[in-house]
């Protein structure tokens, strides 16, 4: 079974088909959530640390991200999405945020649980996002940011969505909520999701994540 670091190497070498073959093999025995949690996320974090150690450049990172995007899309479950017409989720990243692999994983997980998903992508201006939400009337709006200094923007977005007449639930996740104090986000009424396991638990049981272990910085 392939390890995250080997997979990261394939991404960096631009080996899309090889990566896909390994991932399909992994999926024979594991769920998509396990793929995202145990393979893709660690692989992408590893790529981030390679840049920090000056072993690769931003250009390499872009290539790896594109390959990762490709495999996530290629193994996405489209069959479930057709049937799940009753519950709708809109997934997006705020303006200025260019990280989008997390958004794709979240979309895929929602689809796996029979939701109808509208993936709006990263870097979406708020007026545009609100307009789409009013038109499509999602039950849930899922927001994500990788960079910590996007948290104030996320808060603005969360408040705007929560104020819509259709009152969608707002979920906030991404690397940013893991490395900083998110109490001010939670005070808006949005639900903060630390990782895909919490999201899966919520999707399965409707149980809100317990975040007693939050650390204040």
């Amino acid at each position: 079974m392939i390890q995250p670091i080997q997979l990261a190497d394939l991404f960096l070498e631009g080996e899309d088909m090889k990566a896909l073959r390994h991932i399909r093999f992994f999926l024979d025995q594991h769920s998509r959530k396990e793929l995202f949690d145990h393979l893709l996320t660690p692989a992408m974090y590893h790529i981030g640390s390679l840049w920090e150690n000056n072993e690769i450049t931003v250009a390499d990172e872009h290539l790896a991200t594109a390959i990762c995007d490709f495999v996530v899309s290629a193994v996405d479950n489209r069959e479930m999405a057709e049937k799940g017409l009753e519950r709708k989720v809109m997934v997006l990243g705020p303006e200025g945020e260019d990280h989008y692999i997390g958004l794709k994983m979240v979309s895929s997980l929602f689809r796996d649980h029979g939701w109808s998903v509208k993936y709006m992508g990263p870097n979406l201006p708020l007026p545009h996002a609100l307009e789409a939400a009013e038109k499509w009337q999602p039950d849930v709006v899922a927001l994500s940011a990788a960079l910590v200094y996007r948290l104030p923007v996320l808060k603005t977005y969360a408040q705007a969505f929560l104020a819509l007449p259709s009152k969608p639930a707002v979920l906030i996740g991404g690397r940013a909520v893991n490395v900083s104090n998110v109490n001010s986000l939670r005070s808006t009424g949005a639900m903060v999701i630390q990782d895909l396991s919490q999201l899966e638990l919520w999707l399965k049981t409707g149980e809100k994540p317990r975040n007693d272990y939050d650390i204040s910085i």
Partner: protein
Amino acid sequence: MTTTSQFNGLPLPAYTLDRQLVIIEGSAEAIELFGDCRIFTDIVDEESLKKAKTLLSSEVLQPKFELNFISRKGELFLADVYGKRSDSGSLSLVVVPKDNQLERVANQLAKLRERLRETDYDLFQEKERTVELLQRVRELSAPYIQLDANRLLVPLFGDLTEEQVQAFSPRLLANIYETRAETVIFDLTAMGKITDGGLQQLADLLQSLTIMGTASIFTGVKPEHAKHLHQMQAKLPMRFLSSLQQVLSSNRWTS
């Protein structure tokens, strides 16, 4: 911080730093780009800070690395940093902003990705709509008309495929049960070809009808249907009449 002769004429942002990364001197370009700063880490983007601190404090300085910077105007940009440590321990750094080539390509890719995503989603929605319509068409391809208390007329439209028979069977059986019809007349005048799967499903349907005590009559059979239906007739009680008119004018108009 002052501009000194060392950097005069250098067309790039450059700094000399002490061991604590405090800026000792900066080139005119550096001040122009980043403003007057005391410490080098002030101009480094938050997400690049760890990398900057680790690399700049290491004993053996790597000659070239990438960092994200924030300009005086608040713009975030990526740059190559070339560095050298002097014998006294001070650092000389030259900051070379990446030309926007990479950014241009990245933006172009983002736009293409966006377009693919939109096309993908549109196609997906169209497919969803088509599947729904197809199912609707199948269900409607066998309307049933109650002729009298005992007889139900079912004209079949289009090709008779497995999916099609599966689509209209449940509704038909339920309807027969409710109306207690004794005879179902399948009119094939408007029917296209029969597939093997369709034939098999039709046989199952007729079997169900037999068990429910309902007889089946086929009218409007074309020569190409006859070949297929012939095989079935051997196993199931089916009656054939050449036209619907014949059925209607025959016996039991009133029961």
